[in-house]
């Protein structure tokens, strides 16, 4: 720690020193050893988006097959593989990781920190995600694409599944779970220890609250999705009988374990996006969010309730009515925090002086309105006599896609329009952004709204074809047209990205006049985030109390006497704060760049690969390599330079 001495250090010198300290090394080694949260967040964004496109292509293939009755575009085998990979990709490699992507990029900035609490673990969680994605998708190259459905009910996926297809699935899911868990622990510690001084829990931006809540949910729910596929892999590869009814196992055990994770994950993937909307909507209404405490309570309450509703996926399994009723009530209970959130947004807009209809705002409001439909159908399927009809039909397909697309994908595009200028330093085109919004949204509703009706008139989900004459043809065709429209909207958004990149209209530090700390940095953000760690006195530090916008302290200029933490020795130093009120707790010396997270992830890949091909030697080498990487990781713990 050093105190800025105006006699010897100019602000420029300090920035120069920080730049040298926090920058990655150049070239390939720098690329592979970076632990900068912004660079990791950037990689998360790109990788998640690629998987979003892959999952989208799989969805388009299915919709093409279902456009007409008795179609032969895909054979049943390929269709079932696409349906499995669509669900698996979207849940494990997109929905759950896009929240980590924005979390990584935005959370440290929004709390005034220089990095995540565990920079190397952060790199590890990205590399593990990447390798797990490669692991799952390598099944395409050996012709063993998973085919048991994304919730992989036993015994279809154990005794009745041949070849390594479901081994890829089970091990891939365990693999990617490591990434989420590591990332969640990192977020929790970051939020508790790395907030800028004065950023009390009641000044925490709502996106941080939602990320904190979901991180706890991940830590508590992911053990189930690690355990269950591991037991499945044991049943399949080692010959155990955890799920084999004939030998005393129980297929329902799988469902309980799966949905114990499988329902919280739904809230895990839409709470942070609601958090993004909590950031975006106040910015464009120019007012603080209404009922901050209500919003926090709703977020946390959703997290709690999410652990008491998993059985509503199992109402048709023949559980006793009393047991099932409990979960029916709990599922209805989720409507409280969700309704609170909706009326927080409504109240915020109600007292707005002037709403700026930017593309980001349009995407955000569109997301809310669409999400409301998914919320209402969610209440419907909590009612058992109706759920026994709607369960496993297209009604549920419509419901879950409304929740997930409007609760995650549309907010993601809102977030792109809102935060990408911060990431890249240039603005996205507003007009194209609005066009892509309208095309995507019209597509979304044309795609999913008719599916409610399809479910009600008896179309089960996960069928590769259907006969004509059941009255399902028109709605299916409309749905497919909607799917292509939706894809068109996404393509326009991608085109917007590349066009805007070429134009490169500079964004400046705070193009939207937003009030939260991430906008106090330069765009793109300097490697050290903040030259001087800000001291926070307000929920919207960049806004004055009367709701106007004050001059933005770009990069928070180092002030004489302020804490700048730019030591001559090039150590990564930042502040640690303690307590709910973020009191000054000392100087943290952070670890620097390291290639070992990459090696750890690669070795883990090798170990999983050994398990997959039933080869104990490969598995052994992988495990030894993991241990070796961890030793290397910790050997040069203190200084980044030593750790290479």
């Amino acid at each position, binding site marked *: 720690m050093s105190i800025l001495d105006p006699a010897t250090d100019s602000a420029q010198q300090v920035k120069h020193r920080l730049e040298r300290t926090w920058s990655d090394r150049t070239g390939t080694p720098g690329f592979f050893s970076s632990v900068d949260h912004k660079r990791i967040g950037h990689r998360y964004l790109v990788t998640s988006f690629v998987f979003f496109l892959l999952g989208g292509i799989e969805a388009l293939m299915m919709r093409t097959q279902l456009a007409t009755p008795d179609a032969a575009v895909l054979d049943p085998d390929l269709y079932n593989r696409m349906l499995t990979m669509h669900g698996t990709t979207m849940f494990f490699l997109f929905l759950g990781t896009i929240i980590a992507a924005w979390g990584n990029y935005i959370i440290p900035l929004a709390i005034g920190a220089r990095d995540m609490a565990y920079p190397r673990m952060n790199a590890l969680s990205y590399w593990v995600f990447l390798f797990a994605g490669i692991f799952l998708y390598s099944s395409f190259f050996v012709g063993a694409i998973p085919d048991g459905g994304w919730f992989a009910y036993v015994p*279809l996926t154990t005794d009745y599944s041949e070849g390594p297809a479901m081994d890829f699935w089970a091990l891939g899911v365990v693999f990617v779970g490591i990434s989420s868990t590591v990332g969640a622990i990192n977020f929790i510690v970051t939020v508790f220890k790395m907030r800028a001084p004065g950023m009390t829990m009641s000044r925490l931006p709502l996106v941080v609250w939602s990320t904190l809540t979901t991180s706890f949910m991940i830590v508590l729910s992911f053990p189930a999705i690690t355990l269950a596929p591991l037991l499945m892999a044991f049943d399949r590869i080692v010959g155990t009988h955890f799920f084999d009814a004939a030998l005393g196992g129980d297929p329902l055990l799988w469902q309980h374990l799966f949905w114990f994770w499988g329902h919280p994950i739904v809230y895990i993937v839409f709470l942070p996006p609601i958090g993004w909307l909590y950031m975006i909507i106040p910015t464009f209404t120019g007012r603080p969010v209404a009922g901050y405490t209500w919003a926090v309570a709703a977020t946390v309450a959703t997290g709690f309730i999410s652990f008491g509703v998993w059985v509503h996926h199992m109402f048709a*399994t023949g559980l006793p009515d009393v047991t099932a009723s409990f979960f029916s009530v709990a599922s209805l209970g989720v409507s409280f925090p969700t309704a609170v959130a*909706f009326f927080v947004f409504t109240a915020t*807009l109600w007292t707005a002086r002037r709403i700026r209809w930017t593309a980001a705002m349009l995407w955000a409001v569109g997301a809310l309105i669409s999400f409301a439909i998914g919320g209402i159908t969610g209440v419907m399927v909590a009612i058992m006599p*109706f759920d026994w*009809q709607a369960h496993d039909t297209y009604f549920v397909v419509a419901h879950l896609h409304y929740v997930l697309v409007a609760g995650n994908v549309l907010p993601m595009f809102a977030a792109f329009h809102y935060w990408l200028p911060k990431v890249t330093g240039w603005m996205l085109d507003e007009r194209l952004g609005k066009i892509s919004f309208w095309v995507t949204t019209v597509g979304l509703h044309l795609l999913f709204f008719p599916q409610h009706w399809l479910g009600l008139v*008896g179309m089960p989900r996960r069928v590769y074809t259907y006969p004509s*004459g059941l*009255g399902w043809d028109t709605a299916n065709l409309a749905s497919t047209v909607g799917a292509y429209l939706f894809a068109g909207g996404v393509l326009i958004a991608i085109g917007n990205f590349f066009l805007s990149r070429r134009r490169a209209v500079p964004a400046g530090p705070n193009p939207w006049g937003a009030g939260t700390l991430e906008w106090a940095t330069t765009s793109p953000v300097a490697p050290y985030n903040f030259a001087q760690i800000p001291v926070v006195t307000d929920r919207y530090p960049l806004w004055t109390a009367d709701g106007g916008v004050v001059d933005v302290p770009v990069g928070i200029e180092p002030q004489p006497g302020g804490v700048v933490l730019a030591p001559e020795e090039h150590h990564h130093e930042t502040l640690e704060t303690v307590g709910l009120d973020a009191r000054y707790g000392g100087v943290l010396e952070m670890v620097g760049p390291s290639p070992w997270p990459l090696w750890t992830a690669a070795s883990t890949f090798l170990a999983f690969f050994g398990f997959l091909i039933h080869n104990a030697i490969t598995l052994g080498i992988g495990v030894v390599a993991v241990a070796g990487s961890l030793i290397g990781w910790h050997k040069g713990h203190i200084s980044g330079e030593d750790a290479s």
Partner: protein
Amino acid sequence: MVALRRLAAARVSTLLGTAVALSGCAMSGTLAPRGPDAQVAAGIWWYMFWLGTAIFVGWLAIFVVAMVRRHPIDADVEDERRLHQRFIVGGGIILPCLVFATLFVYDLWGINALPRGDEVVVDATAYQFWWEFGYEQPELVTANELYIPTGTDVEVRLRTDDVIHSFWVPQLSGKRDMIPGRTNTLTLHATEPGRYLGECTEFCGLQHANMRFEVVAVPPDEYHAWLDDMVQPAVEPSTAAEQRGYDAFMTSSCAACHVVRGTPADGRVGPDLTHFASRRWLGAGAAPNDRAHLGSWVVNAQVLKPGNTMPPVEIAADRLADLLTYLESLE
């Protein structure tokens, strides 16, 4: 043979469509209930539909007004805070409380209003990818068509022979899973005679899409007459062609997998064929049961329903014709 296969493949779609349309089974699912269970569900659905629509439209109206209106620039901050509070408590607490109260009562009432009787008990066993139905009095096994008497609570005991399936007859009742190692029950009750579409609704593998059945609800006297018919062994071959077909059946792989009661055929792998010709569908709804499709099915069942258990059968064209004639005689 190739021509036959091509013919079958080409005509399957149109034929199936026409057949379903003509069959008179109003296959409009949940929205056309023909039994008390489905009636309860449909009642709850319409209640929730109107309530949900009202809430959505009401909220959206407020939301749109919120977007359009401009709040006075000099509004008092305390007033604003109270207004926010009213919005959030009204919309986030009071409104869900009202919805919650009526819905939960409806939920519990609905569960208790479902039929639970067992005046008639039938067994339903699911296989990849077809259904076996068993009756106890008289003891009898059939496949893919479930006859029930109207106006009667029929308890269906649901089991599976392999993976998890789910038993759903949208017009009569909600669905129930068939899980290895467990027996679930479901009560069907049809208020009107008719043919009702039944479907597998749990993803069960390659041909999950073609795993349908029909519930045939008939008045009780007709039902008993049907049982009396069904309990009879298969009809004896009565013509020379049928006799040759019978021989072909018994000497080929057919008999190893199928039961024809009253004959040496006692395989338990595939559906019981004793009264095969009385059924309307092949392969659990994969194709209508007519000579062209039956021919295609016997020669290579993988064409109409790829992934089902029945292997292709090597059979000469003239023997095939006799075999089909025999099968068509099994009324």
